[in-house]
Structure formats: C-alpha cells, structure tokens
C-alpha cells in the first residue's frame, strides 16, 4: 500500500530539515578528511547520499521514540540533536566523546535523546529494537521503536525472527530497510533471491511498502504513516527506502566495483541538491539564505573538529572502568584477577 500524500511541513521545519541534511553531509566530509589524516582509526562508514533517508526518518518521529541503527550512524545522532563536538570527539577516540572513547564511529549512542545506538554486527540490533518496543508496550507507553538497517541485514536470520515476533505480538515497531543496493561490494542482485525486501515483512502480516529514499519528504511521509500505525493502531510497520551511498562501504573500500555511470546516475538525484531545488522553487529559502546556512554549518563542523582534536585522550588508568554497571567487592575495575 501507499500512504496518502503528505502534508508538507511548515517552512521552518523545511529549513531545519535542509540544515540537518547539510550538517550530516559536511560532518561526513570532514570525518573523511580526519580519517585520511590519520586522526580517526578503525572503520569509518560514511552516509553521504543517505541524508534524506536519515533526516526524513528522524523528522517524522517523536523525540522520545527509541531509535537504533547500524554502524553507519553519525547522521542519526546528528539528526537527533546530539552535540557534534561529542560525536567528532568520539570518532577521534577522546575522553570527551559521546561514549567516552569506548565506542568509536560504529557505536555512537545518546540515550538522553532516545538514540539507542549504532551496532557493528549486521542485523544484530534489530532484536534490541524489538525489545525497546516491547518495553514501551509493557509500560503502556506510546513510544514507537524505529530501527534502521540495510538490505544486507535483511538477509540475516535474526531479522526474520523479529518480523515474526513483531507480527505475532503486534509490537509498536517500525522496521526501516535502507536499501542502498550494496552489501559492502555485493550488489543486491547477487545477494537476494527477490530484490524487493519489504515483502518479507509483509509475509509476517506487517504493513509494508517501498518509497524513494532520496526524497526527504517522501521518506518523512512514509515514516509518519508507519509511526502512526505503530503508535495509534499498535501495529508494526516496515518501510523500504531505495537509496544510494556515494562512497564505498567504508573508508577502506576504494569503491572500484560500482560502475562510474551508475554513480553519476544516482548523483544526479543527490538528496541535498533536489531538496535545495524544492526550497528555492517554493520560495522557502533563497540563495543567500542557503549560503548563510551552509556557512553556519561549516562553523559548527569546524568547531567540533577543533574541540575533538584539542580534547584529552582517555586516561589509560580508566581502561577497565565501566565493564560492569555494578562492579563487585572493593575492586572498581570488577576484575576477577588478584594482583600481587
């Protein structure tokens, strides 16, 4: 099914959506530079090209709706309003990082903004989202749990397990399949028996449909409807977003597999460029206002980068802090070892 046409957000919100998309784009570009300069380690997965999917989703939710994501999740945290300084500091592994330098790029969390984290095992966070939905229903609260994962994750068995339980128990959850058409370097047609993924959820009696993931307003409308089903009708929903990432799987992927022609085709549909056209066309922003917003966002990213670079490293003495919420005995490290 297809939801009814969306109410277009008011101008203030349209501007805010565009600013957040721009912030994500610029933040990711800067993260890429910091990685190339050797200041960010490990894996770095950029969401450039997926800004509409992220911001369209988050803008349709209530701030207290628990959100979970994959390891490509800087944008989700930014869209939820997390401090760009704390995110960049986490990427640089500093004590001021949003997770104290323990998580890094793949494991951001801001529980105060109901962002319940980015997870590194493909498909592994989906049952956690089901549990967050379970908790909302258990407490008779009206939050909707929303979990974003890729079409690659949809091939993991545990995701089907979650579709089944959500359908069986009518849990207030929205499964958001961000189909960027590649699982690392493997295209959908070489990984999936059927190239549409939303029918898998439909097989478990979950209302599901597919929308253009490059169009922020279409994403927002779909997620509004999905969240409404979950919140008001207490039924799960599944939305598949067709999108494209403009960079390789991670910074260590030179992206030589995908055809240049294909990339160019999708870049012509750049979610920022197309949404900018809408804003200009509707007279919501003019070129000067856009330039001013971009400059403001660049300032935010500059400030976050400076803050991160200047932040202290995590003291090694704190290495073992926090393994347990409730450490035992008189050993704050919670270690089992007796040291002489």
């Amino acid at each position, binding site marked *: 099914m297809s939801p009814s046409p969306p109410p277009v957000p008011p101008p203030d919100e349209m501007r805010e959506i565009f600013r957040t998309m721009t912030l994500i784009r610029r933040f990711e570009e800067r993260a890429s530079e910091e990685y190339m300069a050797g200041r960010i380690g490990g894996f770095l997965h950029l969401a450039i090209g997926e800004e509409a999917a992220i911001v369209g989703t988050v803008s349709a939710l209530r701030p207290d709706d628990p959100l979970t994501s994959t390891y490509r999740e800087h944008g989700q945290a930014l869209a939820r309003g997390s401090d760009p300084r704390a995110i960049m500091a986490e990427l640089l592994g500093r004590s001021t990082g949003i997770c104290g330098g323990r998580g890094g790029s793949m494991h951001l969390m801001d*529980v105060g903004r109901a962002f319940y984290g980015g997870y590194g095992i493909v498909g592994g966070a989906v049952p*956690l989202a089901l*549990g*967050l939905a379970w908790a909302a229903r258990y407490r008779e609260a009206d939050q909707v749990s929303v979990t974003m994962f890729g079409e690659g994750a949809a091939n993991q068995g545990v995701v089907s*397990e979650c579709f089944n339980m959500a359908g069986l128990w009518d849990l207030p959850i929205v499964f958001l399949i961000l189909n960027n058409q590649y699982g690392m370097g493997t295209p959908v047609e070489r990984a999936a028996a059927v190239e549409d993924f939303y029918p898998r959820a439909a097989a478990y009696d979950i209302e599901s449909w597919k929308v253009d993931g490059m169009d922020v307003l279409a994403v927002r409308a779909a997620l509004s409807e999905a969240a409404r089903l979950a919140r008001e009708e207490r039924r799960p929903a599944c939305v598949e977003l067709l999108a494209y990432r403009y960079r390789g799987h991670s910074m260590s992927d030179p992206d030589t597999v995908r055809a240049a022609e294909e990339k160019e085709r999708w870049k012509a549909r750049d979610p920022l460029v197309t949404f900018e056209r809408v804003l200009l066309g509707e007279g919501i922003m003019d070129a000067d206002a856009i330039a001013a917003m971009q400059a403001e966002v660049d300032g935010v990213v500059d400030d976050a980068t400076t803050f991160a670079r200047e932040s202290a490293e995590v003291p090694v003495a704190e290495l073992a802090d926090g393994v347990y919420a409730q450490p035992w005995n008189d050993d704050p490290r919670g270690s089992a070892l007796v040291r002489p």
Partner: protein
Amino acid sequence: MSTEPKDTTYRDAINQALREEMLRDESVFLMGEDIGHFEGAFKVTKGLLAEFGEARVVDTPITEAGFTGLGIGAAMAGLRPVIEIMTVNFALVAMDQIVSNASKIHYMFGGQVSVPMVIRMPGGAGHQLSAQHSHSLDAMFAHVPGLKVAVPATPEDAKGLLKTAIRDDDPVIVLESEGLYGKKGPVGGEDHLIPFGQAVVRRPGRDCTIVAHSRMVWVALAAAEQLAAQGVEAEVIDPRTFRPLDLDTLAESVRRTSRAVVVDEGWPECGIAAGVAAHLYEACFDWLDAPIGRVNSADVPMPYAKNLEQAAIPQPDDVVRAVLATMAREVTR
C-alpha cells in the same frame, strides 16, 4: 508453606526465586519457549502463568537469537527480563546477542545504559542425549567480560543466586544443571540473597583442595567420601560464580592444603578447570607440593551409548584418582 525446608527441590527453589522477585518488582518478566502454558521443559515455571498472566510470562516462538535480543533491548529500557533458554545447547544460536550485545553495551556506549537481565539455562550431560544436547559451555560465558556467571549446585544457591541475579544491574548468565532439578535441600526465605563472588566450602579438609561447581560439587563430595575411607581429607570448595571469581577463598584453601584438583564437566582445552588452575598457579605457586590436577569431560563430542557417555563425564573415581595423584599415591582398592 507447610513443606519442610528440606523438601525443596532445586527446580522449586528456582520457581520460588522467580515468583518472589516478580511479586517484588513489576519490571521483572519471564520469556522463553514453552515456559507458560507448558510450564517449562523442566517445569521450573510451574504455576507462574496462572499467577502472573501472559503479559509477564511469555511463551515465545523457537527463536532464541530473537527473544534473547528482545530481552536485551527491554533491559536497556529498564525492564528486568528473565530469559529462559530451554537448554544451554540452544544458546549457541543466541551467542551473537549475548556476546556482541548484552556483554558490551554498558562499556561500549560509555555507561549510558546497563543491561539488567538474566539468561537462565540448564546444561550438562548424563541423559544419553548425544553430542548436540549435552553441552557444558560454562567456559564460553566465563570468558566474556561484561557478563556475570552463576553456577548453582544446591537448591539454596539456585534460589539465592537467582534472586541476586535478577536484582543485579548487569547481564547475568545463570547456568543450571539438568541433573540437579530433582535435588532436594533447604532453601532460604524471601530475603535470602547469595552475593556473587563468594565461594563456599562444601566439605572441610586438610590434604587437598577440590574445586568443583554445579553438579560436579556432588561428584566431588562423593569422591571426598571415598578418599576419607582411605585416610585422605579433601576440602571441597564451590566457587558458585565465575564472574566474579572468589579467588581469595580458593587460594587460601590451596595454600593450606598445598594440593589442588579442579573438576569441571566441560572440555579440558582452555576450559574452566584450565582457567581456575592458572589462577591457582599464579596465586599459590610457592605453596604447591604437586601439579594441579584437572578432571574434565573427555575431549570428544558426547556419545550416545550409555557406557561411553558415562566414561566421558567426570565420575567420583576420576576425582579420587586425580587427588591421589597429587599425593603421589595410587588408588588402593
């Protein structure tokens, strides 16, 4: 309750702990396969669906990874799920959730959320269930920082450790033993909690320390009886939890007896006995009069045939031999 305390089985002790904690705290709920209408594969959850209803005693599909992960997510939101995995053998399909999520979330996200959940499951061999249904995987869980691991041997511990586990703010793996559900003994009352990280001396002795947990405590006690008949007084110590491990109590005993044997139903390689022995070597090297003995299940997949299975799992005679070996003695019978 009109029954004598002595009459409580390990199974009923667990049931009491679940019931009391559910009455005490509305955020506690149970989830697992066939735990409600069927009342549990081992009848541990008997009567709980009738008392607490389907919202809090939840029968799941056969989907261990899914419902274990669901429990983790619910715990992140502040509920206190008690997940029953029918047997430890089926935990293997949920290991990603246990190891990559439950144990990591508090640390990896800088302490923003904890995972106050319990995953309880029975394990062990001895029922001719062959290779896929006879695992003792205690070492796998004890290997993982971020988990706590309790291994009750008696009804009292089964109740007291589970109550502590449910109130704990971290993910706790409670490993029960299929072979102990019918074991009877006294249990504590509603307020009797057994703290983690406190080993208990099951039988005092001066000649050799036997470290054993779960069902192996009873094997060790039977061995200690046989040894006593030969004039050897073994001290049997039950660690009760492996994370945390009460090394102080173990080491104190070994420094006194100068000899140690570790008994573990799991496999020998990189197992519980190996880990405990390493701790004891580090802590007690100068006191030891003999190499530390290990008694494990044979290093094979568990066979079906009764005689082979019995030969594969630790028996009192194996423990007797291992203890006498630390004294450079042979079995005299």
